[in-house]
Every structure is written in C-alpha cells, then in structure tokens.
C-alpha cells in the first residue's frame, strides 16, 4: 500500500495535500497528515491528523487521532482522540482518551473500552453486596 514503511523505521510518514483525492486504503507505519480528500480506510500505527481542509469518507484507526476537518466514518484511536473546534465527525468513535472541543460536531455513538471495563468491574463488585443485602431481607421475611 502507499506509504508502506519497513517496520521500525521512522520517517516523515505520509502527507496528503489539499489538492489530492484518494480512493482506497491508505496505510502507513508512521504519521499521516491529511489535507485532502480520501474515500476509503486510513490506518496508521502512530498518528493521523485530519486538518481543516480534509474530508475522509471511511474508517480511521491509529494510536493518536486529531480531527479538525470532516470525517464520515468510524474512528478508532487506541490512544487519544481529539475533535478540534472545526472538526466534524459523523460516525461511531472508540477511544481510551477522548477530547471534544467546544464548537466541534459529533454525531454518532461513542464507546470507551477502558471505561466499560471499569463499569463492568464496579457492577461485579456491587453484585455480591446486593445479593447479601437481599439475603438479609429474605431472612427477615
């Protein structure tokens, strides 16, 4: 794929200019900066920056993602996801660390796997207490 890098190498990554339209899968082991238009998947092992002039129609996944342009598709950030004031996201997002700045538009479902695990653990912790509480009530009755 375009932007392919040998594992472990670090370079400037891929830069998609504002005068570029791409269709297909864009994948890079390094950073990706998008100023232009992409219809398809965008994958990076490091970061993806969707600037103000950019439009992406398709899923995005990277460790760190910053959106200042428009994204029509799901976003998965294993690290941080930031939707900047000019950012528009239409699609589901999954992130460990989320920041949506004032002025940003986000229409979709949000899930935070770490948070969900925490909630599940809390519920699990609370369940025996509830059960023991219920047991006492039963005894009284």
């Amino acid at each position, binding site marked *: *794929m*375009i932007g392919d890098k040998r594992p472990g190498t670090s370079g400037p990554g*891929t830069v998609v200019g504002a*005068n570029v*339209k791409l269709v297909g899968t864009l994948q*890079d082991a390094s950073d990706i900066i998008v100023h232009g238009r992409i219809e398809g998947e965008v994958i990076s092992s490091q970061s993806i920056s969707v600037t103000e002039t950019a439009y992406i129609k398709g899923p995005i996944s990277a460790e760190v993602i910053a959106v200042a342009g428009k994204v029509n598709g799901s976003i998965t950030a294993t690290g941080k996801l930031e939707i900047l004031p000019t950012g528009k996201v239409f699609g589901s997002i999954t992130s460990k660390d989320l920041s949506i700045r004032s002025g940003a538009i986000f229409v979709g479902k949000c899930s935070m796997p770490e948070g969900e695990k925490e909630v599940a653990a809390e519920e699990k912790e609370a369940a025996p207490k509830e059960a023991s509480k219920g047991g006492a009530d039963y005894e009284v009755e």
Partner: protein
Amino acid sequence: MYYYIMEPPKGKIATRQEKIKDILGDLGIAGETVSSSAARTIEELTHLGIVKGYSTVVAVGGEALVNKIITVLATEKTAKDVVLGVIPNEFDSILARKINIHDIRSACSALKFRRLESIDLCSIEPNRYFITEALIENNRNYPIYFSKDNLQGKITADRILIKPGLEIFTHDRSLEGNTPSKFYRWLFGKKPDDIFSSYFTAKKIRFEAENNAAIPVKVSDEVVAKTPVTIQSRSKVLKIIVARDKIKEEN
C-alpha cells in the same frame, strides 16, 4: 581491474580529468580510461567494459553519466558481479553524500579501499534506472492520476519529484498564492501553510496524466520517458563503492 568511463574531455573537464588520473596513478589504481563520444555512447562503453571482464566500472562525471552506467549494470545479466565506483562532478549532491565523499581525493581513496554496499535503485519501465532523482514536471499544474495496489489517486501538480526508495513529493506552485499575498507573507515574515504539497512512499507506482497527456519524466535534466509511466523501487540491485569513513559514521 578498474574501468573508468569519463565524459568527453572539454575545457575545465579535461583539466579535472587529468587531475583525477594523476591521483589514481599515485594511489596505484589506474586502469583503462575511456571517454564517451558521438561514436561510442556511455551505454556502449559500459557494455564493452563488462564484455572485457572488468569487475569495477567507475563513473567519472555528472549524474546523467552515472544513471546511464547504472542502467546498463542493472539490466545486463553478465554484470551481476560488477561493482560501481563514482567520482562525481559535484560533491554537495545526494549521490556524493550517499557514498560519503567530499572531494576528488576522498572519492579516489574510496575506490582504493573498496568498501562495498548494496543499494536500492528506482526503475522507470521498461528499463531505465536511476540512483538520483526523477522529475515529472509541467509548465502549469495538471491533473495526474496515480495508482498503486489498492489505492488510486488524483493530484493536481506541476512538479512530482521521485527520490530513491520511491519517495514521492508533489507540489503545485500555482496554489502558493499570487504575488501580493507572497509579498505580504514575506513582509511580515509569515510562513505559508504548505497544504498543497504531498509526500508518500511506494514500492511501485503508475502515473497517468489526464486526457493521456504526455508529460516528460526527467532524470538528470534529460527526458527519459513520458506519462503514462510506471516507476518501481528495486532493492539491493547494485553494489557501489562507498568511503571507509562511513563505517565510523554508522558506528
């Protein structure tokens, strides 16, 4: 053992070549020296060197000469074990930096001490190789389509630069703004937001201009192909002599 291919000796070049020959003689690595002419092209001379059984072909001259020799060495099956040495005209070039030489003497010394390194080349189909840079350039911005595996793209650019390792830089000068805006930026020391340049890498890429326009592809200021064109990265296809200093640098 050494086969030196030089540019036609004219003016300053002749003086320079004499100096090189003297240094090579002093180092004890003087060999057969040939110069290209109307009767014998660089490609023919390179082929001749291979046929004669030389194991080291040395390009003494500019990037155009080096790229022509490389094309023969990379395409001829019998040249598989032939090693390339370079004494370039300019020492601030990418090629000189690649082989870590700084002047004529260091270039000649590198040949004597022979540290070999396998290098990547780019090929322009069907059979043109280059080690320096290729340029797809038009006098005005033009829509160009490119494709690679499962990615297709359209770019409006007047300049596409292709570097070894198939690193691709595209730029559209017309989108930099008009003269007043450039002057304004210069006056207030503002750096323009460069959002119209692109950079990416590939292993194989095809460029095709809109309406099948034939935009020239230049290597060392020489037109070697026209769009549509396919350019490919070939890894470790040629052994080149680099300076021993490079070992220290790498360590």
